[in-house]
């Protein structure tokens, strides 16, 4: 049995107060808090081995390079990638998606081609395709979302017909919906399309296996999985990465540079121009250690339980006043609760909650097309992680009372 109370104590920020009350952090879909071990690992890196990587022959430069490459191997293991050199570090999921679009998309997409995405994508999996489509003239097709927050797959075969790529989120950052990635991968492959999985919200919460998913590409971001801001990554099969042109140009990504031109380094370094984020990689490594120590199955179990508790207690206390979007069955969703409270605007809900120390996000959550489909301009969103417990949910449920008090007509 995991001691979840002890887990919470590992996160120094959660000991602080805001507005004179203990902080209740319910915005982990946005970014997670960091355990002491991650913070310490990053300080230790700077205190003991900091040097530029892949360039020096002296002791600490070798150690720094090892530190970076060990984390690559750790990430590969954590997502069950077939090989370590298939993991490319980027600064976040957004950069990984842009790398994929610019490099693979730039080389493979043109007039007459199509890329399929869905209405529940984060802007990071929409805007890069809009940008590229404007340049290359391919078609962007959309899988729609049903009223209960699932992908509408009734016309999937039609959408995939002639498409070269399906790029889809594994878990919605607004609805918590878990999408049937293996089934989508199978469908994409049947149509000779590749599948890219935006696993930014998935990797932090559920044991991830890119091979079982059937994915060709997968992107993730470190700061949502207890790691620091400034590191994320792209995974893709080695053959695909080999075939892709470089993304950013500069040091590190080359083998040879002459006045006439250059040749590229091997994968994954071919895609990692310039000095990488070594301390952040070390922090990400410590975050993976922390999660593996808890066990991803335990993490998931904790979150399903807490999501169920949250859905029950919010509806029990607030009845018809609260509408929670997304799938109603906790086991079929992640711990992301987007809600609309009475007719109080989410911005005001978040303000009132902030006064009670409760941190939730209000707005469109970088998913404007989805909110348009849901027919709401904005929602408030409470999202859960390993350090949350029932008392956090109780605090959320109670603090919502004051929204009623202030704004009731």
């Amino acid at each position, binding site marked *: 049995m995991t001691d979840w109370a002890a887990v919470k104590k590992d996160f120094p920020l959660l000991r602080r107060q805001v*507005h*004179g009350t203990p902080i209740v952090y319910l915005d982990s879909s946005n970014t997670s808090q960091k355990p002491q071990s991650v913070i310490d690992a990053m300080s230790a890196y700077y205190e003991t081995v900091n040097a530029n990587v892949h360039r020096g022959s002296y002791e600490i430069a070798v150690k720094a390079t090892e530190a970076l490459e060990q984390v690559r191997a750790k990430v590969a293991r954590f997502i069950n990638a077939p090989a370590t050199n298939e993991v490319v570090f980027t600064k976040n999921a957004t950069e990984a998606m842009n790398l994929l679009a610019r490099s693979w998309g730039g080389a493979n997409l043109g007039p007459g081609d199509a890329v399929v995405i869905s209405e529940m994508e984060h802007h990071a999996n929409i805007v890069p395709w809009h940008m590229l489509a404007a340049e290359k003239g391919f078609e962007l097709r959309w899988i729609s979302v049903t009223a209960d927050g699932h992908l509408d797959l009734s016309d999937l075969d039609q959408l995939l017909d002639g498409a070269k790529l399906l790029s889809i989120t594994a878990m919605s950052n607004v609805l918590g919906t878990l999408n049937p990635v293996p089934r989508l991968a199978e469908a994409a492959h049947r149509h000779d399309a590749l599948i890219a999985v935006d696993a930014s919200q998935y990797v932090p919460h559920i044991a991830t296996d890119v091979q079982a998913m059937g994915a060709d590409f997968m992107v993730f971001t470190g700061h949502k999985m207890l790691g620091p801001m400034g590191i994320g990554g792209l995974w893709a099969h080695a053959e695909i990465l080999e075939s892709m042109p470089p993304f950013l140009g500069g040091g590190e990504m080359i083998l040879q540079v002459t006045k006439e031109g250059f040749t590229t380094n091997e994968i994954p370094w071919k895609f990692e121009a310039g000095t990488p984020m070594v301390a952040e990689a070390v922090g990400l490594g410590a975050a993976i250690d922390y999660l593996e120590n808890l066990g991803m199955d335990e993490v998931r179990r904790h979150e399903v339980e807490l999501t169920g508790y949250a859905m029950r207690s919010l509806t029990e206390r607030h009845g018809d006043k609260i509408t929670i979007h997304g799938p109603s069955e906790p086991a079929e969703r992640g711990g992301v609760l987007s809600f609309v409270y009475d007719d109080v*605007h*989410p*911005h*005001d809900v978040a*303000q*009132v909650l902030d*006064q009670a120390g409760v941190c939730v996000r*209000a*707005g*469109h959550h970088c998913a*404007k097309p989805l*909110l348009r489909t849901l027919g709401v*301009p*904005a929602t408030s969103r409470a999202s859960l992680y390993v350090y949350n417990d029932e008392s956090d949910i109780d605090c959320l449920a109670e603090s919502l009372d*004051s929204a009623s008090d*202030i*704004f009731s*007509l």
Partner: protein
Amino acid sequence: MPGLEDLYREIILDHYRSPRNRGELDTPPAVRAEGFNPLCGDEIVVYIDVDDNSIINDVAIGGQGCSISQSSASMMSAAIKGKTVSEARKLIGAFKGLMSIHEGELDGDAAESDRDHGPEADPDIRLGDLEALKGVVKFPVRIKCATLSWNTLAQALGEASPV
């Protein structure tokens, strides 16, 4: 520490619950401008009907948003109706002055003296009810909510009566 009562004054809630001049105007003769707050998704539509004497004969407000953006728009519509375009422009300056108090505090004397010499220091401008929004400056993220309708009004004025 600022409390919620600094933000949600009774008069603000009143304008939020019963917004003034809500609706649309025919364009033309009216002009229409739209403003967005990309951060929270608030949208404001401002319609103004300006006559040959540069008087704002009618104003209407559309769109959706939080209590601060909605009440600010409502109060603004009440304040500019019947005013001349140049009076409305001065009011925009004065309101922005009210909203920059926070920056003034952060930047110390420089911004403070800016404010004294800026158009918003015009002693003839009376903000009236709008003063109730002063509390917003203690909640910096909400300043954009409060100024959304005013920026949109500036756009509409620019179209109705180019400077």
